[in-house]
């Protein structure tokens, strides 16, 4: 068993609390991604699991053993750093074997581990080179190799792809996914890139200001976000939000009116009770708008900019209230050059949030 459990884990820097009692269970062999905007505490949380940061409260256990007071090297973890953190004066082979040599591992064991890691990552031709003679992607492979040779119970990745260009990032993302499949080891991965989170994770942990906003499988988070923050963070381009107010309520449903042209109305099924006049936020993903003949409430918007990507287009449109909408359109060549666009909001695809940002169900 090499799962990781966090119970009420807290971190304070002086009087400032940056992690507010996080509870989390990472199952054995699971690929968990911590995602959130800059400063949300995701890297701090990872470093606390690694033991590079002390914890101010709570308990961390790895493989069923509490590791609060265990040295980083004895926690059975290996970490891949954002900046690779390779030893610049050592060759790739020396980088991979340094920790093992320092800990007196037998030579043949070291050679076996290095060869295996180099073969998994296809870096055999690079073993005699120094880090400065490698490209960014190659350095990242070496950094991952250095983690592999430790044969850890848990891999920790701290934004490992953020220093790579877009193409390499996609390539390395696939390799990390393959690595997880091949090794079957528990992996915890930190990123601010929701695409990485969606594509890699078995389970995503969305963090904001040191608190867990939601934990779930990628598509569960996409389909069923717990609040406006998660709804806006998961999915690309991000979900559109429109200010609206309740104009009619019946048991089991609510009718809202947006402030857009002609006050578009929409009736949605909800269990929660509302008062007429309550302020709410309507959310809809760019890809869920319907065409002019679709079901649901019609809206006519002014096109600001349209990006045509071939198969799909992203239309940036302004509403009368000044809010901007992003609309994804497929088969949209006939709409090129239009200044106005009529779209529909299908009620089944619409999300409702209260003024505190919580999801209304």
């Amino acid at each position, binding site marked *: 068993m090499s799962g990781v459990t966090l119970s009420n884990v807290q971190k304070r820097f002086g009087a400032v609390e940056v992690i507010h009692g996080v509870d989390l269970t990472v199952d054995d062999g699971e690929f968990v991604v911590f995602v959130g905007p800059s400063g949300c505490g995701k890297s701090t949380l990872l470093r606390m699991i*690694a033991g*590079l940061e002390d914890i101010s409260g709570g308990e961390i256990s790895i493989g069923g053993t509490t590791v609060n007071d265990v*040295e*980083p*090297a*004895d926690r059975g*973890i*290996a*970490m891949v*750093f*954002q*900046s690779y*953190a*390779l*030893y*610049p*004066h050592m060759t790739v082979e020396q980088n991979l074997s*340094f*920790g093992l040599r*320092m*800990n007196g591992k037998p030579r043949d064991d070291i050679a076996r581990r290095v060869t295996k890691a180099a073969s998994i990552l296809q870096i055999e031709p690079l073993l005699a080179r120094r880090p400065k003679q490698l490209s960014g992607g190659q350095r990242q492979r070496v950094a991952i190799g*250095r983690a592999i040779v*430790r044969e850890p119970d848990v891999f920790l990745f701290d934004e490992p792809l953020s220093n790579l260009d877009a193409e390499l990032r996609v390539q390395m993302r696939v390799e990390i996914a393959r690595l997880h499949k091949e090794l079957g080891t528990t992996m915890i991965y930190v990123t601010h890139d929701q695409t990485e989170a969606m594509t890699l994770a078995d389970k995503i942990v969305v963090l904001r200001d040191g608190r867990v906003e939601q934990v779930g499988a990628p598509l569960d988070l996409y389909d069923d976000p717990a609040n406006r923050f998660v709804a806006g963070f998961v999915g690309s381009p991000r979900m559109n939000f429109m200010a609206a107010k309740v104009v009619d309520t019946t048991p089991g449903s609510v009718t809202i009116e947006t402030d857009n042209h002609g006050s578009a109305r929409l009736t949605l099924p909800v269990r929660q009770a509302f008062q007429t006049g309550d302020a709410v936020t309507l959310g809809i993903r760019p890809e869920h708008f319907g065409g002019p003949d679709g079901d649901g409430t019609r809206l006519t918007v002014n096109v600001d900019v349209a990006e045509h990507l071939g198969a799909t287009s992203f239309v940036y449109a302004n509403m009368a209230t000044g809010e901007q909408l992003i609309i994804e359109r497929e088969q949209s060549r006939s709409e090129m050059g239009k200044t106005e666009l009529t779209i529909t909001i299908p009620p089944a695809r619409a999300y409702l949030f209260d003024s505190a940002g919580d999801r209304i169900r």
Partner: protein
Amino acid sequence: MRATTRTAYGFLTPYLLIFAAFWVWPIIYSFYLSFLSTRVQPWTFNPTFNWGRLIIDPAFFNAFKNTMIILVIQVPVMIALATLLAVLLNSHLLKARGIMRFAFFAPVVVGEVAYAAVFRLMFQADFGVINKLLALVGVAPISWSSNPTAAMALIITAVTWRWVGYNAIIILSGLQSIPEDVYEAATLDKVSKTRQFFFITLPLLRPIILVCVVLSVIGTMQLFAEPFLITNRGGPGGATETLGLFLYRQGFTVLNFGYASAVAYTIAAIAIVISVINFWLGRDPK
């Protein structure tokens, strides 16, 4: 020449004139002087006069030996101390780091005469604080100015005190350029702090330590103020006379400019040779 270039040279001219008159010309002229017999007027061209004397002059070899002793003991000790000091000054555990860094750098900005006077007082045989402290641990008074070995130790101590902070600050800048996460990676690799120092810090500091060694070698080859001021012009009996002091004595006491010039060129040549050896030994192994 383009107008902008002309303007630039126009502004540089006053400096270049001074540079040429007081740097370039003396360097060239002293090389010429080293081939002249300058003991009697008029000076005559005699290439073997100074250079021939140099290779057999016991006074020159005494100064050369003294300089080498100082170099071989003082430079490694000082660089080792400076490296340790830099690590301490870089420590997060140290309070008032800014003040501490300035305090260790301060000896460089103190005037040579002032610091020499303080050292003479501290190491005075009868009432100096050093002998008093040694007496507390049962060591008999040391005659720092009349015992040749003690005088040499005094010079080495003084030079080390003066320059260790300066070198520590240079090495500190090198330490600060080593990313913190390299140490974190080593911590995760279960490498102790001591081994991190020897296997990560020292190899990464090598280029900067090499620069410090070469600068120190050049400085030691020119060493003058300390033996002149602290041990009474290289005393006792020439035991602390360095090449710099020997050059001064030949040039400005005896007024034998030709021989002084030959000594000057020899000092420069030795410094270059030692520096090249240092760079060669400290090169990046491929």
